[in-house]
Every structure is written in C-alpha cells, then in structure tokens.
C-alpha cells in the first residue's frame, strides 16, 4: 500500500551546519517526533480496530465479548458455504460497473484532453458524483420513479419504470456514475502524456481511426486504463447505498449490506467480522495492484 509518488529523497533534507552532539540528536529525533501524532491516531483507530476485527472473526457469534470466547473457523466456513453468492455478486457488480466506466470514460477522457477548452467547467461539474453515492442514487431513483420526471418518456417507449428501477443495469449505472470521475482522472492523466503528433503521424501514414486506437493510443495509455479500472473496482467493492436505493433483492446481496445486517441488526459479530475481513482482503489486493501499476494515482 506504499504510496509511490512520495518517494524518499535524502537530498530534500536541509544540510545541517556544524552542530553539537546534543543538537544533532535533537535533529534526528525531530522527524519521528513530528510524525508521531499521526501515527498514534492511525494505530489507535485504524490498525487496532482491524486486528480486533480479525480476532473477532474467529469467534462464535458474539461470544468474544463474554467471559470465555469460543474460537472457531465456522464464520469463514459459513461465508464460503452460504454467502459465496454474495461475494461473487459483489465482485460481479464491481467488475461490470468498472467496465462501464472504462467503455464510456475512455472516450470522455480522450475528448476532454484533446478537444475541450472548458476543462475547468467539466472539472467543476464532475465533483457532483463525488459528493457521494447517496445523493446520486437518491436523485436517479427519483428520476425513473413510476410517477417521476422520466415517466412520460418511459410510457412512450413502453418500458415499465419498476422493472427499470430495481434492476441490474440501474444498479450498475448508479455505481458507475459514482466512480466515473476516477476513471476519467486516471485515463486522462495517461492520455495527457501521449504526444498528439504520434496520432497525426499514424493518420498521415494511412491508419484508420481504430488502428490509431489499437496501435498507438491503447498501448501508450494501458497503465492509466489499468489503474483507473482497479481504482473504480476498489471503490465499487465497498458499494452500500446504491443497491439499497436502485437495486432489487438480488442486487442487495453484496458484502457491505450483508455485514451491516448481520452485525448491527442480528448481533452476529463473528460472521459480520469474517465478511469484513473478506471484503478488506479483496479491497487491499486491488489497491495494492492499482498502486503498483499507476505509479502515483495519488499526488502524481
């Protein structure tokens, strides 16, 4: 999970003038001292809770919080035996919505980088999805409601609004809308580094547009595509509110929602923790891959 953009550079240290041994010690301790508060907060509220979660995931129901916890592997067995469809459904929805982002986000990023002069406007309006999937899903579900603004159009096309609203495509669209800016950001960064003269040269030499894409653009922006896809995938794995508002029962079989129901309404902390660990391992795996490929999606 190393952030590759923040490289270690000894040259950035200030060259120290002649110093006494005590002052040298003070200088040496200053760096660790300044990072300490941040590190303490992280250990207390991020690392300790995750270790705690991992331990609880090996205990039966909520026995961990009684005098004698019962250690067992049954939570993971239960995830494997009964909730495997939830795991695969989570991954399926994340893959499909990230693919949607890629298919529609790549042209968007290309046009944005090559043609558009009003980039600030696009950037400003693109912050709306980033305010969160809650408002997005709420707005979208109101639009396609049986008596909502889109109802006359749907009637005209003979589409039943209810079949559209609580369906796979709607859920995937909602998830994709939220992560669309991440895809545009990653692909756009990669495309901005592709020299436009390469495309012109290919075209002058008689390449068809699709050849320009497959031979020039795609290979040169592959890292951005991969980074964007994995970033969208990582966000979409944790999807919670979109299936709740835009999906039906089949779409609501995702890990985040299930672990909420198990943990906070049925108090089966063991099972909820096991699901949390599974989800976290998936998300960290994806993040690790994306950071490996992106070379600085953060702070580049």
């Amino acid at each position, binding site marked *: *999970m190393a952030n590759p953009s923040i490289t270690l550079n000894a040259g950035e240290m200030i060259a120290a003038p002649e110093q006494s041994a005590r002052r040298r010690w003070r200088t040496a301790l200053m760096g660790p001292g300044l990072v300490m508060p941040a590190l303490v907060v992280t250990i207390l509220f991020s690392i300790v809770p995750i270790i705690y979660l991992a331990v609880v995931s090996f205990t039966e129901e909520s026995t961990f919080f009684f005098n004698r916890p019962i250690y067992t592997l049954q939570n993971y067995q239960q995830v494997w035996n009964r909730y495997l469809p939830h795991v695969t459904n989570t991954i399926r929805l994340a893959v499909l919505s990230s693919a949607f982002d890629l298919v529609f986000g790549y042209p968007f990023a290309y046009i944005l980088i090559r043609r558009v002069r009003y980039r600030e406007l696009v950037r400003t309006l*693109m912050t709306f999805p980033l305010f969160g999937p809650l408002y997005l899903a709420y707005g979208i579900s109101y639009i396609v409601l049986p008596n909502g603004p889109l109802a006359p159009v749907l009637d005209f096309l003979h589409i039943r609004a209810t079949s559209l609203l609580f369906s796979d495509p709607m859920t995937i669209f909602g998830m994709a809308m939220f992560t669309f800016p991440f895809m545009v950001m990653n692909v756009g960064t990669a495309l901005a580094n592709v020299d436009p003269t390469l495309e012109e040269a290919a075209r002058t030499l008689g390449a068809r547009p699709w050849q320009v894409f497959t031979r020039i653009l795609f290979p040169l922006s592959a890292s951005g595509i991969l980074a964007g896809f994995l970033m969208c995938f990582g966000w979409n794995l944790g999807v919670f509110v979109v299936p709740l508002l835009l999906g039906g029962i089949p779409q609501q079989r995702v890990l985040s929602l299930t672990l909420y129901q198990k943990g906070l309404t049925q108090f089966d902390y063991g099972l909820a923790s096991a699901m949390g660990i599974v989800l976290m391992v998936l998300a960290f795996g994806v993040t690790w891959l994306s950071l490996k490929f992106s070379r600085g999606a953060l702070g580049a």
Partner: protein
Amino acid sequence: MSAAMMATRRGWDLRPARFTIVLQHAYIWVWLLLFVLPFVTTIVRSLESADGGHSLVSYRAVYGSFKGYLILSLEMTIATIVINLLIGIPAAYAIVRHAIPGKRIILSSLNLALYTPGAVMGISLAITYAFLFHIPHSYTGLIAAYVVGTYPLMLVPIIVALRDLSTTYEEAARTLGANRLQSFFRIELPLLGPGISAGILLTFVIVFNEFLVTLFIAGPGTTTAALRVYGLTRTGFLPTTAAVAATMQLVSFLVVLFFFKAFGSRYLKGTYLI
C-alpha cells in the same frame, strides 16, 4: 456537375471532421448533464408543494428540525479539519524534510484507512468502540473515525506543495537569524497556503457527506446531517427529504466552487477531487 463534385470533394476533407467534433462535444455535454441531473431533479422535487404548485415551503419545514443535524455536522467537520491540520502538517513536513527510519512503512500505514471500504471501517470501529475503548455513540469516536479516514487526503496535497517549495526560503530565513519555528510560521506556512487549502477542501467534502461509517458508529444523540439524509431516503421521496439532500449538495458545491475560484485545481490533481 463539376461544381457539385468540387463541393463534395472539399466536403470530403472538412465535413466529417467538423461533424465528429460536434459529436465529441455533444458526448461531453451528455455526461455533464448526467452529472448534474440527479441534483437538479432533487431540487425540482424539493420545490413541489402538496397542492401541485411550487414553493419553498419544504425548505422552511426542514430548517426547523434539520438545523440541529446540520449544525452538528458542521461542528464535526470543523473539528476534523482542525485535528487533521494539527497532525497532518507536522507529519507532511517530517516526511518531506526529515530522515525517518522506516518511512515507507509509516507512509503505507498512514494511508491504510484510505483504502479500507467504508463498511469494514464501520464494523471494525463499531465493535472496537463498544467493547475495547468503551466510547460507543460518542463525538470523540466519530471525530476520530473521520480524522483517521481523511487525514491521508490532507497529507498528500501538503506533501506535493512542500516538494514544490525550495528549501532556499527556509535557509535564507535561518541565515538571517530566524529559528526553526519562526521560519516555519513566517515563511513556509504562508507559501503552503494552497496545498493546505486543498487538504481542507477534501476533508470538508468527505466528512460533511460521510454517512456509511457514521451509520455503524453513531447513536441517537450523534446523528449527523448526512446520516439523517440517509435515514430519510429510506422512507421515500417526500419534498422535505429532497430539500435536505439538495441543501447538503448545495453547501458542498459552493465550498468547491469557492475553492476553485480562489486557488484553481492544481493542488487537487491526483487526489479524490480530480
């Protein structure tokens, strides 16, 4: 005939290109419309009144009962920003300007919470707060969760800004007799302004709209505005709910707009907000 041929021949070069360009811009605008459509329809819905007309009545109804949640949210957000600054600036400074043993591992662990899915963070903090720290449903717990989830986002723009800042300014100040603290507060901090502001903006947008982790760890007395909106959306499409959701987005958008006007988007590059 030759004139027609000329026209088509000339058009062969020009017309498809121009047509494509129009199509390309149209594509961008379709997506821009999609970005704002959920927000616009939410506003339209919030303006509808029971008798079929349009009025601001749902907003008036909202600010009676919703005001408390909104104020709590703003307080939480400001507290988180202050703590983020207090622990983020020294950490960023140390990471760029000092030698720290195990720097890479430290950076990775600082970013850990950023990559944890909201529900996982929620469940882990819920059980930790309830059974280990014994601070369930507390302000402290909520703010700590927000801090740990957002200060990596504060760290990145400040690190970027510090990188861009040559050490010669600090050296000049130190040579002229300023001590370490003086040179930091008088010289470097003002120069880091845009980077720090970017961190503040990111923290604001995320904490103000955060409902998922909050859902796991908040109690009856610590319901934030975003969590209240989440609760209300579960009950349907009342104009008052729409008014609340629209207000949240409007506040966030105005903050973003103000920031873009003041500082541009340079220091946000590569972070959560493009």
